[in-house]
Every structure is written in structure tokens, then in C-alpha cells.
């Protein structure tokens, strides 16, 4: 059976909870003097990054090394070869080298899905972010962070996020993080509200399992977690909103707004943060902001995913569409 992690939408509730529970186990490894497990000894994993992302690559690399895998980093930045040729050719080169798993980041939506289903390679494919489509391990680490903060570390084991209310704010249109989170949080029983100016919400969003609001202030009081998305400065030139200041006034999270959130509510951000734009320094540096925890949790989640895909006896994650085609 082929085993891949392409989309957060492919995870069942039980798959997702198993990954979160396994990540709790993995987190304990980080507390040990020697932060290493022998699980993936002798397995080779390639981090295939067609798009810059130092933090995601390092997070995967740390996870792979803590599981004792052999790691190859491939950065295809600035290749003059046409993108299509280089993805297929590169994949087949890696296949010839006996790679067990490919962690792929690509600027084109669907590239990991193509890699997993086109017959170019047999290795497991883990999506580390594709275009504006999906970033499933990000959604898993976000859910993991929420469960730890809102349910509790040990109390959370076996639990999902039923009844929790999560607000995701910002550039939903271009965000694979938002797409992945909507899918996974819905699967885990949470109620999701997307908040953005109408220009940054995709046409067709009405079919997503979430609410959509254009008004941040009205959603704050009923949020258990508020996730701020990064807004790229170049969006301003494309007339998605008038000015940085206006965006900040209407959709930025500052101390006043944070004060309107329930006391237990947390502030999240996938990073890197643009301070002063979508989030003020006051909020970013507060105890309620989980940005640094999210980074640490990212390693635990990626260890769990790799462990379950490559090391565990029972496959926790299956990609159903792939299975049908194979």
C-alpha cells in the first residue's frame, strides 16, 4: 500500500488524533539528554525544496535526524531547467538512489500529488507545502499546539478539539496554512471562522466547512484561539487592500483587540511574523502568543508523521485517492 501525506483533508479523525498522541511521545524525546530515537536508522529521506523555506526544512531535518534517518537536502532554487522537467527528472534521480521518503516543498499547487500518483517514484511523499494548496504538517502542529494549550498535555491524549472555536485571520486566498487548518480543524470537531477582507477570500469558499466573516472585532469574544496569517507586502500593490495601515486597523491584532478575547484564548501565527502589520509587538511577545511553541511542536509533529509513515507497524496515514489509483 502506498502511504503519503498530501493533504490535511485526507486524514480521518482517528488518523489525526493518533498523530497528535504520537507527537506527545516524540516531544518527550526532546526532554532527554540524548534527543534521538533509532527508529528510522538505515532509511533515507530527501528534503526536496523547490521553494525557499528555511524554517520548514530545518524542522523536517531535525525531526528526521532525531529519528536517526539519513538525510539528503536538495534545494532546486534558481534552476534554469523548466520546472516540469526538473521535478520529474529530480524525482527519478532520487528514486534511483533508493530514497524511502520525499519531503517536498513546491511552488505549484498539486506538485506533491503528482509526485505521489504519476508513477515517477515509489517513495512515500510528504507534502511540506505546495503553492496555495496544502501544508498538512503545519495544520497538525497547529492542532497539536491548540490541544496542549486548550485541553492539556496529558489530558489531551486521545482527545480532539470538539467544540473549540478557532478564528483564522488574514490572507486566506493565498494561504495553504488556512486551507489545511480548515480541513483538519473541522475533522477534529472544531468550529472555524475565517476573517479577512473580501478580496482575500477565495471565490467558492462557501463550500468549505467553516464560517466566513469580514469583521474581526465581532469574532474575538467567541474565539478560543486566534490564528494570524502572514500578509505579504506585495499584496498591497495588487490592490487586495488600500494601504498597510488600513489593513492593520481593520484586521491587525493589537493589545486592545487581544483584551477582548476570552482569558484562556491563545494567539497563533505560522511565522514569520510581520510585526506592526498583522500583529503588534505587544501581542507577539505576550504569554498568550504560541509562535515559539509552534516551532518546537513542529519538530514533534514531523517526527510523529515520519514515524507513522515509515517506522510504525500500522500505517496511521493513508492517502485514499492514491490507493485507488495504484
Amino acid at each position, binding site marked *: 500500500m502506498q502511504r503519503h501525506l498530501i493533504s490535511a483533508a485526507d486524514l480521518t479523525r482517528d488518523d489525526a488524533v493518533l498523530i497528535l498522541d504520537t507527537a506527545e511521545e516524540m516531544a518527550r524525546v526532546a526532554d532527554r539528554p540524548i534527543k534521538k530515537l533509532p527508529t528510522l536508522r538505515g532509511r533515507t529521506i530527501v528534503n526536496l525544496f523547490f521553494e525557499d523555506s528555511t524554517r520548514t526544512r530545518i524542522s523536517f531535518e531535525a525531526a528526521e535526524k532525531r529519528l536517526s534517518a539519513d538525510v539528503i537536502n536538495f534545494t532546486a532554487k534558481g534552476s534554469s531547467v*523548466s520546472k*516540469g522537467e526538473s*521535478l520529474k527528472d529530480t524525482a527519478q534521480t532520487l528514486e534511483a538512489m533508493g530514497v524511502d521518503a520525499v519531503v517536498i516543498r513546491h511552488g505549484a*499547487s498539486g506538485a506533491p500529488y503528482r509526485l505521489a500518483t504519476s508513477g515517477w517514484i515509489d517513495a512515500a511523499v510528504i507534502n511540506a507545502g505546495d503553492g*496555495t494548496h496544502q501544508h498538512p504538517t503545519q495544520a497538525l502542529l497547529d492542532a497539536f499546539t491548540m490541544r496542549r494549550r486548550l485541553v492539556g498535555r496529558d489530558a489531551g491524549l486521545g482527545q480532539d478539539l470538539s467544540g473549540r472555536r478557532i478564528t483564522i485571520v488574514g490572507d486566506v486566498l493565498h494561504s495553504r496554512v488556512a486551507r489545511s487548518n480548515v480541513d483538519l480543524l473541522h475533522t477534529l470537531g472544531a468550529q472555524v471562522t475565517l476573517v479577512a477582507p473580501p478580496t482575500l477570500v477565495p*471565490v*467558492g469558499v462557501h463550500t468549505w466547512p467553516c464560517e466566513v466573516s469580514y469583521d474581526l472585532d465581532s469574532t474575538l469574544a467567541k474565539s478560543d484561539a486566534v490564528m494570524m496569517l502572514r500578509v505579504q507586502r506585495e499584496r498591497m500593490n495588487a490592490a487586495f487592500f488600500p494601504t498597510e495601515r488600513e489593513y492593520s486597523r481593520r484586521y491587525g491584532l493589537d493589545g486592545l483587540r487581544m483584551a477582548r478575547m476570552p482569558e484562556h484564548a491563545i494567539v497563533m501565527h505560522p511565522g514569520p511574523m510581520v510585526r506592526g502589520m498583522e500583529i503588534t509587538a505587544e501581542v507577539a511577545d505576550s504569554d498568550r502568543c504560541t509562535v515559539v511553541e509552534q516551532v518546537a511542536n513542529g519538530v514533534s509533529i514531523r517526527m510523529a508523521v515520519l514515524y507513522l509513515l515509515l517506522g510504525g507497524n500500522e500505517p496511521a496515514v493513508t492517502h485514499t485517492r492514491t490507493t485507488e489509483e495504484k
Partner: protein
Amino acid sequence: MSKILIRGAKVLGGEPQDVLIDGEIIAEVGTGLSDEGTVVVEADGKVLLPGLVDLHTHLREPGREDSETVLTGTRAAASGGFTAVFAMANTFPVADTAGVVEQVYRLGQEHGYCDVQPIGAVTVGLEGKKLAELGAMHESAAGVTVFSDDGKCVDDAVMMRRALEYVKAFGGVVAQHAQEPRLTEGAQMNEGVVSAELGLGGWPAVAEESIIARDVLLAEHVGSRVHICHLSTAGSVEIVRWAKSRGIDVTAEVTPHHLLLTDELVRSYNPVYKVNPPLRTERDVLALREALADGTIDIVATDHAPHPHEDKDCEWGAAAMGMVGLETALSVVQETMVATGLLDWAGVADRMSVKPAKIGRASGHGRPVSAGEPANLTLVDTAYRGSVDPAGFASRSRNTPYEGRELPGRVTHTWLRGKATLVDGKLT
């Protein structure tokens, strides 16, 4: 040239008749014709149509002979039952001078599989900045009557107005690729529910509809005729319907793939489904079928767009847009229009031969199947059903969305001015 007797063919789907070809023309149509001195083709209830005419074909020569040439493209056309194709101008070099259009025209004549009528570019290099020498192309041996920057939209309203006005001098028509460029920056597929989920850049229906609305108004203002290429949305149908009711001289085409396929297929991320304009929704597909049936959409045109394997065997974002279509067009039309009861075979002849010849002023094509007419004919085994196997294509490219799909109908014979180009499904 010897005489050919096509025996027992359902002419335009009607009662079985015999058709006698003598030389380049149809000599006689009737029942019980003598087969003395003739080569007999037993049609046995097959449907006989006037040779099909495609107003929208990409032959790729000159410039991209690795994907198609005039020879391979016209062989594909003959296999699909076509006796004339209009070759789009987006070649390398662009067909924007008398020299290039004459070259393409001459290659078609030399190969002899079907007539090739070049389409001239509207603007130099398809760049939208300066009118190409439309008159010179018309006066050339190719006798160009259709002008298009297809692949790109003539988006500058003044340029479009001037082109529409200018071609009136020689009865030309401007065929518009309706795509507002700013609204489709980064577009990868139809904008809607599926694009939102897949995270692929959206190509909104309004980008097509707004240009069509503008162009029918321009055509009305300057009293010219305009043709809309590969119309793909329900909204576009409404605009064309309104324009026709107002007496505006507009014609429109729909591709076979827009009559059958929807954007749900893009969920596979298989670039074989990547095409411009993109596959739309089920609602659009049904509206297009209705419009073709009621005449709002005048014709079917293939937008046959061959691409080499490597341009499709990659991730979606990097893939070329387009599908081959000449060899499957009639089958798709049978599946979507005839089997559904929307069109009879006379209607198919009208939409795939008579009207496209008329729009393109190809006077020798799209003629009635009757005595004295040029013997441009296509014989179709409509009872056949089989799955599409691209390995058997005459086209140099294999980028068909129908691989393995079962479709009805098979062209068995094609005659170009009495000369068989396809016999029993095999090219001559």
C-alpha cells in the same frame, strides 16, 4: 479519376441512398444507382455527412514541428472526418505576413489530406500593439478571411475596433480569444469551488464574458462581424443570445471538450485537463449544449492544440494548456448532442460543416450532399462504440483527455474533392 459509388448511406442521417462520385464532384444521389464502372463502398446504414470543417486548429508549423506539422495535423484531420481546417496564427514565426500564411497554405495543398486555410494574426507578433498586414494576407495566395490573435486576447478596445472596421473592406472576420488579461493573471483553472479547494489560480467566467460583451457592442457600433472563439460559460451564452436578438452580426464556437468535461476533473491534477479557456462547471456544460442546439452557438470547433509529452508530463502549474481534438471531435459531439437528442445528424452537419465554412468563407466546403457539388464527404459508423486509444492517433501529439474513455462513432471514410483520404479507418 474513377467513379465511386457509396451504397446505402444515410445522407445527413436520413433514409439510405446511393451517392455517386465522379471525379471531383458528386454526380448523382438516389436509390438503386448502377455500380457499373465504379468502386463500390458499402455504407450499410452509416451516416454520410458533408466533409467536416474546423474553424480552429493549431497545426504548429512553422516553429513547433515537434508537436505537430501541417502533414501530421491534416492526417489527423482526415482521420476525424475533416476536409478543411483553419490553421491558427500563433506559430513561430507568427502568421502575420503574406509569406507565412502562403507557406502554410501551400503545405496543405501539397500534402493533400485536407484543405488548410490559414488564419492571419490580427496584430504583429500577437502583441496587440500594431495591426498586422491584414489586407496583404487576404490578397495572398492563401486568401485569408479569418483573423485572430488566438492564444491571446485583442484586449485593447481601440485595436479591436480598428481590426473589426478594417476587415470589412474584404469581408473578413475577427475571431476573438475572449480573455481579459488582468482578470486572468496566474490563472490555472476555472475560478470556483474546485479552484478554491485545490489552491490553483482562478480563471473567472467574467474574464470571458466582459470581453464578449464589449466586442459585440463594438461590432454593432462599427457594423462589422465578430466571431467568438471557444465560448465556455453559461454567461457568455446569454450575452451572445442577447446580441443576436439585437441583430448584431456575431457568431460563436464551442469546443467538444467544453461540451463534455468539467472542472471536477482537475482534482486529479493531471495536466491533460489543463486547457484555455478552462473546463467549467456542469451548469456551463449544459448551457453550452442547449445553446449549440438552439443555434445561439453556431459551430463546433476543435481548438486542436497538440503538445509534446514532456509539456504535459509534469506538475500542473508548469504544464502547457491545450488538448488535441481533431480525431475525437465527432465522437464527442455524437455523445453529447446526438445521443442526448439535442441535435440530429443534419444538425451536426450544419454545426460542423455548413456554418463553419460559411463563417470562414470556405466556399468549396460545407455544401449540400447533392449532384453537382464538390465531393467533400465523410462517412460515419455511428453504431460503433470503443475506447479512445491515443496510440492510434495520426496527430504527432497524444495529449487527449479521453484516453481509455468509451465514446460512440467512428469515421470510416473521408473524401476530399473525390479523392479518398481515409478508407476503412485507414489513411491513404
